[in-house]
């Protein structure tokens, strides 16, 4: 699914601050590239083409796009955006961070089970005392299939050690 908004037709003359921020980010990426590849410039051979050449071209492109984005931002030409709800996003991101923190300590099933429950919470199922155990059992099943049968290297924790 995608956003296929028609270009905004609202003719307000205030700059679009969020779009301006994008222009700044693009320029910053370009600056980081210029700064970083300056180290490897010496490696260009007699042809003057080296590891720094293409990153520099890309950085020039990014600067051009930053300017273009800034122009569209001032003209208010960016598509209208729907209101975004932050609550669910916090739940989902929290789930992913929890999985990262738990993965090597508690093993795949517990870490991913917590992720499962927190994402479901983001979509409105907040009964964590139910969803966390369901998620852990589900992920244990997945672990047994993928680590057991398909031999993927998924980190094992106390729960997994009961089975293998």
């Amino acid at each position, binding site marked *: *699914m*995608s*956003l*296929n*908004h*028609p*270009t905004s037709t609202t003719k307000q003359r205030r700059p679009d601050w969020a779009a301006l921020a*994008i222009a700044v980010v*693009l320029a910053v*990426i370009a600056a980081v*590239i210029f700064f*970083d*590849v300056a180290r*490897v410039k010496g490696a260009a*051979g007699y*042809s*003057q*083409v080296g*590891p720094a*050449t*293409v*990153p520099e071209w*890309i950085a020039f*492109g*990014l600067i051009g*796009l930053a300017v273009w*984005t800034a122009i569209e931002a001032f003209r208010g030409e*960016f*598509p209208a*955006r*729907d209101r*975004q*709800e*932050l609550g*669910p996003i916090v*739940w*989902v*991101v929290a789930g*992913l*961070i929890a999985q*990262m923190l738990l*993965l090597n300590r508690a093993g*795949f099933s517990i870490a991913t089970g917590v*992720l*499962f*429950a927190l*994402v*479901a919470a*983001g*979509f*409105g*199922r907040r009964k964590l005392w139910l969803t966390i155990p369901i*998620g852990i059992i*589900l992920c244990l099943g997945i672990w047994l299939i*993928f680590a057991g049968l*398909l*031999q*993927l*290297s*998924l980190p094992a924790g106390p729960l997994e050690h009961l089975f293998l």
Partner: protein
Amino acid sequence: MSTFEFLLQGLVAAMEPMNLLYALIGVTLGTAVGVLPGIGPALTVALLLPVTYRLDPTGSLIMFAGIYYGGMYGGSTTSILLNTPGESASIVTALEGNKMARAGRGGPALATSAIGSFVAGLIATLLLAFLAPYVVQIAIKFGPREYFALMVLAFVTVSSAFGDSALRGLTALFVGLAFSVVGIDQLTGQTRLAFGVPDLLDGIEVTTMAVAMFAIGETLFIAAQGMRGPETVEAVKGSVWMNAQDWARSWKPWLRGTVIGFPIGAMPAGGAEIGTFLSYAAEKRLTKHPEEFGNGAIEGVAGPEAANNASAAGTLVPLLTLGLPTTATAAIMLAGFQQYGLQPGPLLFATNPQLVWGLIASLLIANGMLLVLNLPLIGLWVKLLTIPKPWLYSGILVFATLGTIGANPSVFELGMLLTFGLLGYVMRVFGYPIAPVVVGLILGPLAEQQLRRALAISQGDVTYLFTSPIAAVLFVVAALAFIVPLILRIRGRGEVLSQMAANED
């Protein structure tokens, strides 16, 4: 050996019981994942890539072929029954297909799309088999500058020719290109943009990026919309089978769709969507029942579905013969090849013919299996569509992280998944397309190699790039593909282009 013998040999290899099993698993998994709302073929392939890691290259690619075709088929089921196309190429199918489903003719709509996909897939895969050796003959003559020109053309068509804004398409492409230079430079061994982080030395994984952008970005985006109106799944009422009139009205659109779709997919330009739109327009003009268009005309499902599948097979022509991915799906397939140290291109046909022809043959087999599998199992796929959102998206995230952990069990990789997921979310909010990032990331290093080889030959003289006739023509076409849509948009004709936005597939 002739093409025919190679193909026959490939068929024999693909018919081995183990390989048939791989194809069956691939087709089933591909359909099951592809049918889930919001998941297109690109994400299906990216999510299921890890499943194939531990198999040998042949088995893995065979399973892969099944996943690819299964995912495509699953996508069209979703758009007929749910009216939320999982992939942009299915938008047209949703136009007429969903109307048919609402009128209680969901069965025949699914059947004509399944059989049409089969017919188109069969013809297009055979065309691929017979066309590929000729393209390889031409590709052998290509030097670095021709390859570079070809890649520039692919960059332009993927990013800025379609979609609603050249600016946002190009920005997405350049973000992908910027990520593509992270890691050790392949020609000199210098590290670039790794900032001393050892995990970045190998560059950014295409599959991590694709899964993050498509799965996590999409999940965040859907979550942020809050609880808005529920979607209704149309029940499949009545017979699944098509009656005599349905057959009579379907077979010509299938063939026309194939003829329209295949060349568009086979061109190094990309986008299965264009073929489906052209096919829809053609059927609308040729139909004897114009009054039914917009209310559920079976031709409007049969033609575009065939075109969709034919161009999906067509995209394998540039992918296999030139190593040039022109869609996000093809980009992820290329990543799958690279997993085994295989670089598709003319050389692969010479060095590893069993593998290439085994893959093409298993596409044929996967295609047949889909037909057998899907008509009887329609009820099961419909059930998958009714999974409530919380479980659907938690499941998607479990599988997305499973794939990343399976490929590289490190917390750093999960951190990248989260970071790119947030990036994908922000890009969605601001209306940036996702596919150019993925294509830029995988094609960037290849384009850089060719460019630097070309410039090394000319000792840094940039004009050398344009002085070969083939390269010059390709650059002119690329320039036109950039300028013409820009003018169309300025003159207010941009709606057509934004409808053709190549977002996912």
